[in-house]
């Protein structure tokens, strides 16, 4: 078992806790870089999709897992990013400019929506973002002059330094770069006063406010950053699907994003990526075993959403730490092998703060 003895503050602020982290994550990076050479086109494409969802997942994790605000409207931000990117691209703006613009514009939208809604408590925020998401979804459908309505919108092929990104490998590497950027940004931000203010708001708004944290400012900031990252994911998503249909960005997709965050494990960036892996690969897994399932379960329509619902329920009831928590428990079990105590991973009793003003 490894104990990290901290002897100075620099260590406390470091991104890597110890050399082992550097080694294992370096190995993971090499592996992800090598995957397009090792695996077939189909799997590379799927993993590209996982990365795109992981980007949005990290964005939402900052909001839900670290700031304690819930959003059921992140599909709208994904859509805003996707359409901004594609419309600009079709006007002849190069991809390396449209990508950041899509992110920034979505962040701006997030701030604009966040500002008035953030006075609300958790529950109202959930409802307001749900309403926002469905309004934006309707706008995508009706604003035909820009989005093409139900006819769809063919996304032009992007070029990076003259190389066309029209195959799975291109999307894979672009998404990987953006994902690494987003993770790097979040991991660093969480160590700054901004990140700590966000965590303080999550743990207790009143005590955060008493410590001099400007609640509205930091909540809006968190919302904007989260929306911006989702917008980046949206820009990539547009190239991933190649053909934008307005009904892709509905409530179901928003719920899928929140599922990523919950199943992955709240309050962990690694969790967001694990959650994205799970949520994206589960449908593929179902597709593979579909024909082998008994009683024609596999042919049942609506199997996927119900399975997501079931998994969400089971995770919240029995494994609130998500996949990341499971991983931590397993690691602890192996590290402390013969001495593992039954109480080690037990859920701490937590009492929700009453939101009632009485």
């Amino acid at each position, binding site marked *: 078992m490894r104990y990290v003895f901290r002897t100075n503050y620099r260590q406390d602020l470091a991104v890597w806790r110890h050399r082992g982290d550097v080694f294992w994550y370096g190995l993971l990076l090499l592996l992800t870089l090598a995957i397009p050479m090792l695996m077939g086109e189909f799997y590379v494409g799927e993993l590209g999709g996982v990365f795109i969802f992981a980007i949005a997942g990290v964005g939402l994790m900052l909001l839900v897992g670290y700031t304690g605000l819930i959003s059921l409207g992140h599909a709208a931000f994904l859509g805003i990013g996707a359409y901004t990117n594609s419309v600009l691209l079709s006007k002849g703006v190069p991809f390396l400019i449209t990508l950041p613009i899509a992110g920034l514009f979505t962040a701006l939208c997030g701030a604009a929506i966040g500002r008035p809604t953030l006075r609300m408590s958790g529950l109202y925020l959930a*409802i307001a973002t749900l309403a926002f998401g469905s*309004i934006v979804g309707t706008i995508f459908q009706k604003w035909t002059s820009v989005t093409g309505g139900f006819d769809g919108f063919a996304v032009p092929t992007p070029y990076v330094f003259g190389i066309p990104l029209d195959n799975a490998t291109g999307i894979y590497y672009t998404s990987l770069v953006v994902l690494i950027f987003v993770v790097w940004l979040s991991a660093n931000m969480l160590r700054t006063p901004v990140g700590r203010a966000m965590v303080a708001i999550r743990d207790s708004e009143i005590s955060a406010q008493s410590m001099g944290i400007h609640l509205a400012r930091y909540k809006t900031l968190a919302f904007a950053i989260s929306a911006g990252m989702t917008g980046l994911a949206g820009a990539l998503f547009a190239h991933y699907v190649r053909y934008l249909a307005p009904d892709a960005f509905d409530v179901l997709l928003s719920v899928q994003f929140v599922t990523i965050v*919950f199943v992955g494990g709240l309050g962990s960036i690694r969790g967001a990526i694990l959650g994205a892996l799970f949520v994206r690969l589960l449908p593929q897994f179902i597709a593979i075993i579909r024909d082998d399932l008994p009683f024609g379960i596999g042919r049942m329509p609506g199997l996927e*959403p119900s399975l997501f619902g079931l998994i969400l329920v089971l995770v919240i009831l029995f494994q609130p730490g998500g996949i990341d928590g499971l991983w931590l428990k397993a690691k602890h079990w192996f590290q402390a092998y013969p001495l593992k105590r039954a109480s080690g991973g037990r859920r701490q009793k937590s009492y*929700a703060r009453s939101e009632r003003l009485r």
Partner: protein
Amino acid sequence: MEDAARLLQLVVNGAAAGCIYGLIALGFVLIYKATEMVNFAQGDIMMLGGFLAFSLIAHWGLNYWVGALLAIVITAAFGYALDAVVLRRVIGQPQFAVVMLTLGLGFIFRAGAGITWGYDSVGFATPFTNKTVNLGGLVLGQDNVSIIVGTVILCGVLFTFFSKTRVGVAMQAASQNQLAAYYMGIPVRNIFSLIWAISAGVAAVAGILLSPVSMIDVNMGFLGIKAFAAAVIGGFGSIPGSLIGGVIVGIVEQLAGYYLPAGFQEVTSNVVLLAMLILRPQGLFAERMGKRV
């Protein structure tokens, strides 16, 4: 005259739709007041109630009234079990865990209903289908009138229940102060489950009343999103407020559908909801309260 009659027609249709929103919102409010949870599956419970009534009346050939009553009772029992088995476990967890939990339950109910009753829209004969009442030249569908009358009767029953019966008063006490209620010997857990049962029963009533107007199908539960607007207008803690909010949303929606270009009707309730949350988040009927730390 033509315009006035048309307007009145729209208002009545809107009020009928609004009563349904109000009834779903009532379910939200009952549960929220008692347990500070919000049941995002309320619309889906309504769907289950509607389908149960369909099975009992159209398949088993029961009398409409008997079948409806039975469906309400079964749905209420289901609500009780839902709280006792699932939701009681998450008391004390952060609120968004409950939001996600009920959303997940909604997906499961939808799939369950899809397996059991199929994905086609169904309907059953009611005493109100395709009949009209003539009120001094104004022709109204009996189905719409039945919704409004049914809602009024249900509210009367609930009001009497909460103010006159022992259980009702115990429920009020439990939702005002759990600990004090517990010390007074009120079985708070069972009371909470009973509140879930009532709220599920109310949802079933909404589903049954709605069935002559629109068909029952698996995606009926999405009406629940509109009901949020109703609950928010009412301040999320007020039972009459949620009904009035529902009627407001219903009427505004009908008028928007008639006077505004196509596409606006679908977003009206959401726009109303957002505007309400931004301008007056405490709702129309909430008293001002300060937070004690």
